[in-house]
C-alpha cells in the first residue's frame, strides 16, 4: 500500500484543496436557488464575524459574550454613514470596522483586569448596554422601532439592482455573496498571517498560561487589546454587511442570543482552526434555513399554513444547544477536529499496514517494532 502521504505531497494537496474550495465557492451562486443563495450570503457574512471571535476566544482564550455589541456597532455605523450621510460602501464598510475596532480597544483593557468568567459577565453587560443605546440613542440608531440600512453601493454599482456583465447577470443576493466572499478570504489570509506572527504566538501563550507568558516577556496587555481590536473590527464589518443585506435592523436583534450563536459557531466549527468559523457558520446559519425550508413537509414543525408543535427557529435552537453540548463533551476541537481524527485514523491504518507489509517476510525478533509508539508519534505530529 502506498497510501502513506509523503510530507511533500501533503504540502502540494493543501493549496490544491484550497483552490478547489474557492472554485466551488465562486461557482456556487449559479447552482443555488435564490433562497439558498441568500442563505449562503448570510453564512459568509457571519463567518467574517465568527473569524473575529475565533481570534479572541479560540486563539487568545478570552471568553467574550459581547460579540453582538460589536456586530451592532458595525450595522449602525453603516446605517448612519450610508443612510444619513449618503456615502458609499467604500466609506462605511471600512468605517464600521474602524469604529468597532476602536470600541474593542476601549473594552479590551477590561480583559487586563478581569479573568475568565468575570470577563464573560462584563461582556454580557456590554450586550445589554449596547441594546439600550440602540433603543435610546435615537439620533444615531433611530430608536426602538429599528432603522433601515441602505444597500451597498460602489460608485455606479448598486447592489439593489444587481450586476450584469454581458450575458452574466448577478442579482442582489449574488452581489452580497461575492462581496462577503472577497472580504472573508482577505480576512482569513490576514488572520492566518497574524497567527504565524509574533503576535499570534503571544496570543497562544496568553491563552495557555497568562502568567507564564508574562514571565517569558510577552506583553500580555498589548496582546489582549490587539486581539480585542482584530476581533471587534471583523465583527463590525460583518455586522455592517449583515445590516445592509437585511436592510432593516431592530435593537432586539443584537441580544445575548446572537452572541451565543457566534460562540456556537466557533465551538462547533473548531476553535483553533482557520476553517472552523466557516464550518460553524454553515451549521448555525444553514440549519434554521434548512428547517424553514422543509417545515411544510415535516409534520411537527410549524409554518405559515399548518400549526405544528414547534417553530423551526425553536427547533433549530434546541439542536444548537444539544450539538453544542455534544461537541464540548465529545470533540472539543469541533468539526475540524473530527476531520483530523478521520485523517489520523486513515494515516495510522495505512502506516500499520505498511509496517505489517515490511514486517511480514522475516519476522525480526531482536528489534520488535513497537506499533503503538509509532502510532503515537504519527498522531501527535
Amino acid at each position, binding site marked *: 500500500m502506498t497510501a502513506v502521504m509523503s510530507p511533500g505531497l501533503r504540502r502540494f494537496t493543501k493549496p490544491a484543496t484550497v483552490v478547489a474550495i474557492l472554485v466551488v465557492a465562486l461557482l456556487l451562486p449559479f447552482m443555488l436557488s435564490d433562497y439558498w443563495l441568500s442563505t449562503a450570503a448570510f453564512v459568509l457574512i457571519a463567518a467574517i464575524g465568527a473569524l473575529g471571535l475565533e481570534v479572541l476566544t479560540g486563539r487568545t482564550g478570552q471568553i467574550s459574550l459581547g460579540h453582538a455589541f460589536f456586530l451592532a456597532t458595525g450595522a449602525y455605523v453603516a446605517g448612519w454613514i450610508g443612510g444619513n450621510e449618503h456615502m458609499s460602501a467604500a466609506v462605511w464598510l471600512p468605517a464600521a470596522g474602524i469604529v468597532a475596532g476602536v470600541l474593542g480597544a476601549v473594552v479590551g483593557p477590561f480583559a487586563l483586569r478581569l479573568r475568565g468568567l468575570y470577563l464573560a459577565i462584563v461582556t454580557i453587560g456590554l450586550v445589554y*448596554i449596547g441594546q439600550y443605546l440602540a433603543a435610546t440613542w435615537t439620533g444615531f440608531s433611530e430608536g426602538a422601532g429599528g432603522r433601515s440600512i441602505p444597500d451597498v453601493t460602489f460608485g455606479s454599482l448598486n447592489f439593489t439592482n444587481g450586476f450584469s456583465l454581458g450575458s452574466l447577470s448577478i442579482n442582489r443576493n449574488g452581489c452580497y455573496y461575492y462581496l462577503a466572499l472577497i472580504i472573508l478570504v482577505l480576512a482569513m489570509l490576514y488572520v492566518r498571517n497574524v497567527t504565524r506572527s509574533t503576535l499570534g504566538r503571544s496570543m497562544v501563550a496568553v491563552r495557555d498560561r497568562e502568567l507564564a507568558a508574562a514571565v517569558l516577556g510577552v506583553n500580555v496587555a498589548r496582546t489582549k487589546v490587539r486581539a480585542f481590536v482584530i476581533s471587534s473590527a471583523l465583527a463590525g464589518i460583518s455586522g455592517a454587511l449583515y445590516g445592509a443585506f437585511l436592510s432593516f435592523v431592530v435593537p432586539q436583534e443584537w441580544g445575548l442570543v446572537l452572541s451565543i450563536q457566534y460562540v456556537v459557531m466557533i465551538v462547533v466549527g473548531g476553535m483553533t482552526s482557520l476553517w472552523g468559523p466557516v464550518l460553524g457558520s454553515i451549521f448555525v446559519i444553514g440549519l434554521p434555513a434548512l428547517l424553514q425550508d422543509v417545515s411544510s413537509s415535516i409534520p411537527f414543525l410549524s409554518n405559515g399554513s399548518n400549526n405544528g408543535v414547534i417553530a423551526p427557529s*425553536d427547533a433549530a*435552537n434546541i439542536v444548537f444547544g444539544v450539538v*453544542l*453540548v455534544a461537541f464540548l463533551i465529545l470533540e472539543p476541537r469541533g468539526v475540524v477536529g473530527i476531520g483530523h481524527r478521520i485523517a489520523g485514523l486513515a494515516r495510522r491504518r495505512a502506516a500499520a499496514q505498511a509496517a505489517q507489509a515490511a514486517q511480514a517476510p522475516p519476522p525480526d525478533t531482536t528489534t520488535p517494532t513497537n506499533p503503538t509508539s509509532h502510532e503515537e508519534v504519527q498522531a501527535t505530529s
Partner: protein
Amino acid sequence: MTTFVQLLFAGVALGAVYALIALGFTVVYRSSRVINFAQGELLAFGAFITSWLVLTANLPFWAAFVIGAVATALVGWAFQVFVLRFALGRPEFTIVMLTLGLATVLSSVLPTLFGNFPRSNGDVFGSSALHAGGFSFFWVQIWTIVAAIAVLLGYGAFSRFTKYGLAMRSAAIDPEAALAVGIPLRRVYATSWFIAGAVSCIGGVFLGGYPSSVSPTISDVALLAFPAIILGGLDSPSGAIVGGFVIGVVQELTQGYQPRYIPALGNDFYVIAPYVVMILVLLVKPYGLFGSKPAERL
C-alpha cells in the same frame, strides 16, 4: 417621602429575588467553580411549571409551588448528573458553554411547551395589598421578602449544621483534598445543582407575581443577578445576598428618580443601571467587593 418609602420597599422585594438568584449561582459556583448561565432559564422553567400546574392542572397554589420547585431542582440535578459530570476538570470555557447549551435548549423548549406569551404566575396574592400608615405594600412583595429570608436562613443552617453542608464547604475549599478524605464530590455537585434549581424556581414564581407576569423573557432577569454576585464576589454567599439587595434598591430608585432628574439617560435606564454599577465596581475591585483574589503560581 411616601414615594421614597414605596420605592425602597419595592427595591427590597426585588432585591430579595436577586438575592435568591444570586444564592443559586454561588451555591453552584462555590462547590464546583461553575457559573451557571442557565440559571435564568431554570427560573423561567420553575415559574412556567408552577403557573401551568395552577392554571391548567388546577392544583392549589402551594402544592403547585412545591412540585414546581422539585421539578426545577430535578432539571438542575439531571444536568449535573448527565452532562456536567463528563466535563469535570475541563477548562472553564467548556463549562460555561455547556451551561449556555442548557440555556439555549430550555429557552426554546419553554415557548414550545407553554406558548410564547405572558401568563399569570397563578399565585394566591394577586394584586391585594397591605395598607398601613398611608403606604400600601403588595402582599406578593411582602411574601417575596419573607420567603427569601426563610430560604437564605435555611441555606445558612444547611451549610453550617448538616453533613452535606460541611461536605459542600470542604469541596469549595479544596476539591482534591475533599475527595481524598472520602467526600463524594459528584454527589456534592449534584446536591448543589438540586438546591440551585429549587431556589431558582422560588425566585421565578415570586418574580412573576403582580404587577409583572410569567413570560419567556423572565429569564433575562437572572442575568441582572450577575451584577449582584459580582458586587458580592463570586465565592461569597453572604456577599451575594448583600449584592442582591443593593442592586434591587439601586434599580427601583433609578426607575423612580432618574427619568425626572437625569432625563438625558432615557426612560428605561433602570434596566441597565445594575450593569453600569457592576462595571464601575469591577474597574476598582476586579474580584468584587467581598471576593478573594486567587493566588497564582507558575
